[in-house]
């Protein structure tokens, strides 16, 4: 069972709630995913077009809200959003995102660390979104982060785990849970992260923009369960040398006479 900051989660799939065609589709996809933790964002109310409220679409007795600080470009803006999120949601859980560059949406490591230090002091349970930097992950862990969320590839790119080597190091070193976030574009990417030993994955775009988001949510659920099961079962080591699966004794045919150099 996954435990973050003393809270247990039976599902290792976290789901983002952005980009869905409707609140209803989002709700059904979250249900199909089996997820117990969803991310949400804070925005100004559009006074000319006030939509339904997302808080009412989801059953908060079953699903934890993880408010994010998306849109924050520095530590100061992230801390402001965090405080608003705590008041609006009634939870002190936070996905800390500091993304100064709107083109790449890559996180600012310096301000992410700065904001984590401050928010932990203020009583937040901080899950920082980071580039897959093992040293930064350790620094954040030391600063009191409840988990670290390294990216597989930039947000919304569907490119999968391009950062595999660094993510593996983070997983080996971290004492806090590692949630691979961003860039997971297919169930196979999620399964790969879980096989590597990630504690959980966060998926949004790949589900929300699928032809059938509810079915895709189910596919991710199965992939995350399969990947975790494989990790716990213990995967065989990759090798460049072939090794027969069938016995090599008692062959009924003579050895082929390959030319040996």
């Amino acid at each position, binding site marked *: 069972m996954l435990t973050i900051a003393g809270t247990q989660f039976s599902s290792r799939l976290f789901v983002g709630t952005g*980009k869905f065609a409707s*609140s209803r589709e989002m709700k059904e996809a979250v249900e199909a995913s089996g997820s117990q933790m969803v991310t*949400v964002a804070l925005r100004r*109310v559009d006074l000319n077009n006030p*939509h339904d409220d997302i*808080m009412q679409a989801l059953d908060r007795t079953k699903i934890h809200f993880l408010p*994010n600080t998306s849109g924050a470009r520095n530590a100061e803006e992230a801390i402001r959003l965090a405080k*608003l999120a705590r008041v609006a949601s009634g939870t002190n859980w936070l996905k800390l995102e500091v993304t100064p560059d709107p083109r790449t949406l890559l996180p600012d490591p310096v301000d992410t660390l700065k904001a984590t230090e401050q928010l932990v002091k203020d009583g937040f349970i901080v899950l920082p979104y980071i580039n897959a930097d093992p040293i930064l992950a350790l620094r954040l862990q030391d600063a009191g982060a409840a988990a670290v969320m390294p990216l597989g590839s930039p947000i919304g790119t569907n490119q999968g785990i391009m950062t595999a080597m660094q993510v593996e190091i983070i997983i080996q070193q971290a004492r806090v849970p590692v949630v691979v976030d961003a860039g997971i574009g297919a169930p196979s990417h999620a399964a790969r992260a879980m096989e590597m030993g990630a504690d959980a994955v966060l998926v949004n*775009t790949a589900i929300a923009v699928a032809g059938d988001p509810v079915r895709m949510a189910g596919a991710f659920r199965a992939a995350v369960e399969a990947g975790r099961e494989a990790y716990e079962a213990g995967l065989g080591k990759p090798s460049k040398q072939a090794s027969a699966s069938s016995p090599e004794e008692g062959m009924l045919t003579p050895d082929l006479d390959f030319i040996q150099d």
Partner: protein
Amino acid sequence: MNITCNGEQRAVEKNSSLNDLVISLELNPQALVAEVNGKIVEQPKFTEQMLQDGDRVELIRFVGGG
């Protein structure tokens, strides 16, 4: 008197509370958090938060996000 709400100028009656503003905008106060001049106001305090001429009000809520 005039206030700025979510970046837009708005005329409100004298002695209006934040709750009056929210109701006049046909919003559900339960789903909101507000800032008045940069200071957070929690939903239960919307009624006692009186608005002054020139106040900057931000009405904020959760939307879908990753």
